[in-house]
């Protein structure tokens, strides 16, 4: 029988025995909080008046939300035409979606191939770990830098954008695909092997077909992410599309209401995709844990 632990000084019964996990948790929280406070106290604002700028931000935000409006000439429409502007904006949106689609498609094909070799139950540990560590390095480079690096070789544009955006896509999908391959019952693979199937037959007849719905859901989830990435690349790496329009509206024309208009368009697309992705996640019990 263990006795109660009492506080040495006060003699009170202790409720919480100090456990290492609790200590680490407290340590992590303390360190993070300290870094945050230090950063916020010392951060360089370059003399900006925070109160005034915050008020201005709120005002702009309100303007964006309540009075969105596009300027036709910014969308290459010469004579008036609200409808023409709207269709031109939709066209830009389509370009961004197309960039996201191509990235997801090419990235997905490469990832399917690498995913088979990264799955621990289909190859040996060395190959699988090798691919995983290589992809960890690939993932550590921000997407925008990948795009800019490829722009040196291919010029700014859709080719550099798609190749650059593919890296994180591949890294993400290889992880997702290989994990779903690893979930396949070991017995199924054993049975096929026993019946004389070779490695290719096992992969193409059993492994991929039985995880096809996971593959498709994860690919769609990545497509949703890639849409947001493509918007960002349009703005920061000259990939074109609606992201570039957003960049122009804000950085060149200084038109808050147009930022609002474009933001609404992007929001509409991403909310629809988020809804679909959520439905897929619920259907296949996918958890995207940290």
């Amino acid at each position: 029988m263990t006795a109660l632990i009492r506080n040495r000084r006060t003699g009170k019964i202790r409720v919480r025995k100090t456990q290492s996990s609790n200590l680490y948790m407290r340590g992590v929280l303390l360190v993070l909080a300290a870094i945050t406070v230090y950063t916020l106290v010392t951060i360089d604002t370059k003399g900006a008046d925070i109160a005034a700028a915050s008020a201005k931000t709120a005002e702009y935000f309100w303007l964006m939300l309540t009075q969105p409006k596009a300027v036709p000439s910014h969308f290459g429409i010469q004579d008036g035409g609200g409808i023409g502007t709207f269709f031109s904006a939709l066209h830009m949106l389509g370009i961004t979606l197309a960039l996201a689609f191509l990235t997801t498609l090419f990235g997905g094909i490469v990832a399917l191939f690498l995913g088979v070799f990264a799955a621990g139950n289909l190859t040996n540990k060395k190959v699988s770990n090798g691919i995983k560590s290589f992809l960890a390095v690939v993932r550590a480079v921000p997407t925008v830098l990948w795009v800019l690096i490829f722009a040196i070789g291919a010029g700014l544009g859709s080719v550099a954008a798609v190749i650059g955006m593919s890296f994180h896509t591949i890294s993400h999908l290889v992880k997702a695909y290989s994990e779903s391959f690893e979930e396949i019952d070991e017995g199924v693979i054993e049975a096929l092997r026993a019946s004389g199937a070779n490695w290719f037959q096992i992969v193409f007849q059993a492994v991929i077909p039985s995880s096809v719905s996971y593959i498709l859901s994860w690919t769609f989830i990545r497509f949703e992410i890639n849409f947001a990435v493509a918007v960002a690349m349009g703005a920061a790496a000259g990939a074109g599309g609606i992201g570039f329009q957003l960049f122009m509206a804000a950085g060149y024309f200084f038109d808050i209401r147009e930022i609002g208009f474009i933001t609404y368009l992007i929001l509409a697309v991403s909310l629809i995709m988020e809804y679909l992705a959520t439905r897929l996640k619920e259907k296949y019990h996918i958890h995207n844990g940290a």
Partner: protein
Amino acid sequence: MNSLLTNSEGAGTYLKSKRIRLFLFFVGLFAAAALSMAATNYHIEDSFTAIPKVIVWMARNLVPDGKSLTRLPKILDKLFETVLMSVAASVSAAALSFPVALAGSATSCKQRWLMYSARGVASFFRNIPIVAWAMIFLLTFGQSPFTGYVALFFASFGFLARAFIEAIDETAAAPVEALRAAGGSYGHIIFQGVLPSVLPQMVSWVLYMIETNIRSAALVGLLTGSGIGFTFSIYYKSLQYQSASLVVITIVAVVLVIEAVSNKLRRLIL
């Protein structure tokens, strides 16, 4: 299965319809790809020439030289600033996300309208492109590290709020029910039931957010002229690729270290 084997005609049509569906799927995929390539001016042959070209070019130019190494202290300084910014943005966004997540989780919120509004707010903030945040804050706060921080803060807020809502829904439902049944007040339920149950998951998400924010900081920095992204763009635009590559290498090193530390911490706090 048996009926399929004996009824060969049935099996035939079954396989045929499956094959037709597969065929249609690939036709659709090809059509969409062709359309996308046309819309974006994508020449597939360019991608095949570009990749080897870039690899050769990378091997030749992206190796830091002596001059770029003298810039290392300056680069590390900016990188340090960026890491601090990412931590601060992630942690302060988490502090705001938690109450929103409490309102947005079916477990901790019994008012339907409040729950749906909180979820709406989370979704709204999560889906506003980070570029829009960066550009607006650039207009109002000017070019400074603080602007980068605020942009990362808002982008993180929506993401974390949603992640926390899911965490509470998944792990806190059972204890919340027990504390309610024992006569606990709302404060008791949150502090004694929800918080201890979800804290490890929340910390795990914050660590993930820090990693993500360091990468996003490069993007935000390019747009708002702050942190490591700005440093990279200066070297990149002035064609000093050796120095630009040193920036990339230091980012990779920092991200890998932070990832390793996070994974270690995740195991320790569980």
